[in-house]
């Protein structure tokens, strides 16, 4: 067994899970709700790229697959941002008005509808996003130990997104508004911040991270209409292992989950997902607050 590669692979995979979990965490932290369609929306981002690439490839005549894919990425993320805002102000806000239970159920209904709509339109075939030779290129660290550029790029993206979110929440006026609304909706409303708009922004940011994570997943592994639930479970496990409500905890949780899956898969390729689940259940049993729970003031 190639231990260094397993550890590095697990670490990099953890970045991907943390990236994916950050959107889940952001929505829960702001509105106290869980979006069960999180994974399926990420799958939609992947399919959107698949739909866009032929158009972009044709319009930029000379562009090879990878360029068109990157162009599509640049389009999909802002599209998700806008859809996130609009969806939050309409569908999610009206279910929030009914209570957290309704929001949970509406998002579950949405997950089932999305999954089956993808199945009807794109069949059950699996796809992956084409980034050309970049996907296969790797850095050789020493004899027998090499690391794929793709994994490194995804991990760096995850760190940039997490740091960006943390800075946004800590130091900007918008971040202060989001935190204020999360703490006390009515009080924030009284001092002049429209909580519906702030929720909309949080929803838009969460959807943008969903798109980034979905695209990262789509280049890292193949996906099909039914991939969403598994992605949702990984993101959720990263959040709980790390500790609810803390972005750095989420990164740590993602890495723990990534390492667990990587070690499990090294023993037997079919054991990867299961060993991740088992580590999650062990954390739930023995350290239910997670490794880095949010402080009361965070």
């Amino acid at each position: 067994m190639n231990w260094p590669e397993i550890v590095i692979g697990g670490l990099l995979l953890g970045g991907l899970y943390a990236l994916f979990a950050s959107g889940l965490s952001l929505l829960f932290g702001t509105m106290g709700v869980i979006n069960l369609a999180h994974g399926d929306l990420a799958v939609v981002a992947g399919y959107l790229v698949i739909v866009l690439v032929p158009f972009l490839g044709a319009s930029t005549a000379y562009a090879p697959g990878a360029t068109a894919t990157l162009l599509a990425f640049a389009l999909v993320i802002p599209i998700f941002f806008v859809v996130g805002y609009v969806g939050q102000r309409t569908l999610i806000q009206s279910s929030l008005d009914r209570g957290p239970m309704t929001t949970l159920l509406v998002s579950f209904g949405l997950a089932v509808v999305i999954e089956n709509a993808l199945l009807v339109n794109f069949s059950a075939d699996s796809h992956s996003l084409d980034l050309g030779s970049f996907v296969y290129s790797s850095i050789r660290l020493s004899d027998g130990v090499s690391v794929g550029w793709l994994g490194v790029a995804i991990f760096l993206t995850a760190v940039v997104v997490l740091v960006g979110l943390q800075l946004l929440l800590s130091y900007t006026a918008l971040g202060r508004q989001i935190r204020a609304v999360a703490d006390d909706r009515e009080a924030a409303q009284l001092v002049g911040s429209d909580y519906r708009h702030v929720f909309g922004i949080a929803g838009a940011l969460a959807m943008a991270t969903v798109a980034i994570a979905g695209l990262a997943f789509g280049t890292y592994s193949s996906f099909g209409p039914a991939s969403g639930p598994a992605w949702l479970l990984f993101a959720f496990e990263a959040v709980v292992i790390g500790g609810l409500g803390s972005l750095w905890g989420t990164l740590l949780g993602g890495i723990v989950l990534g390492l667990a899956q990587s070690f499990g898969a090294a023993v037997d390729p079919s054991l990867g997902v299961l060993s991740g689940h088992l580590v999650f259940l062990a954390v739930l049993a023995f350290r239910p607050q997670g490794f880095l729970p949010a402080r009361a003031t965070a």
Partner: protein
Amino acid sequence: MTATFGRILAGMRIASRLPRPTSPGSGAVRVTRSRLSARWSRLFAVAVVAVMAYMPYATDPGTTAVLINFLILLTMAAMWNLLAGYAGLISVGQQAFVGLGAYTVLVLAQNGLSPFAAIPLAAIVCGVLALPISWLVFRLRGGYFAIATWVVADVLELVISRVPQLGGGTGAALPGLFDIDPAWITAYTYWAALLVAVAALGMMYLVLRSRVGLALTAIRDNEVGASSVGVRVGRTKRIVYTLSAAGTGAAGALVAVSQLNVQAASVFNVHWSAYMIFVVIIGGFGSIEGAILGAIVFFSLQQALSQYGAWYLIVLGTIAIVIALWQPRGLWGAISGRLHFSFFNTGYWLWPRTDAGEPEATPADAGGTGAAFAAESK
């Protein structure tokens, strides 16, 4: 919220007087379980069950097989409604118990027991296994609880599909029924499914009329308030989770018997939870009638749309979203809200006393639902 809480306190006081609800000491109101005579709804229920029990003689095995699926769906939905509509526990992992029930039947049948005799044992096994599972998943709340139940179901699927004796990932045929005429297997399975559905609904009815039911209503309306007046919240939720798991396990056992084959990817599929959730959203949260009405509507739509493949889940999911947003009490909630009527009387009705001590024709309640403390009240 506060008003509802006040009603709970009133309800608790009423409950403590239940043995003598019409005694002179109970003040200006008379308390009854039902508005209509309970005798009529019981008679109606017995008639419906009798007609349903006769169905295998009146129809062909194909129709009977369809009715089996309906009864399984009804049982599962009622058990999910007990969990979510009363204990406020939204689970998207009830397929864990569908699968455990199915595999319990498989294991027992492989060891020579009749699959039909294994159905009640599957319910017991699921109820027992629900205890350690609840210990894990109850550590999380709300949406996180929901996803944790899903993880548990996923773990069970992954573990069981690694056991070669259980057919691994490809599944195993259910032994023990090959020497019976297929038409009779269908009929026996149908009666077993009817028995399970009646037992599950009956269990739900009795639980909701017991102290546990009263505690549940209090918890659902205000958990902190309920625990401050002495309701043991954790214990009550655990009881409900266990009972719901047992009922769902019996339904899962029926899935194994009706398909004569058990495959992990199929019995542990999240679609089971989707069915339960959609039925309850459509029919109505927090009522036994809601699960029945929802199962009838869902099943009719499923049959009508079956030729369109995955489209039926798109249509049913959209309907469920629309109903959750605009008619959150579901179809039965809309009906019973207008007609002040219920078949299964799990709440209480308060009647004002006139001087003669006779109740007036309309029950006294500011809310207009007729029930001062009905389990259906939100």
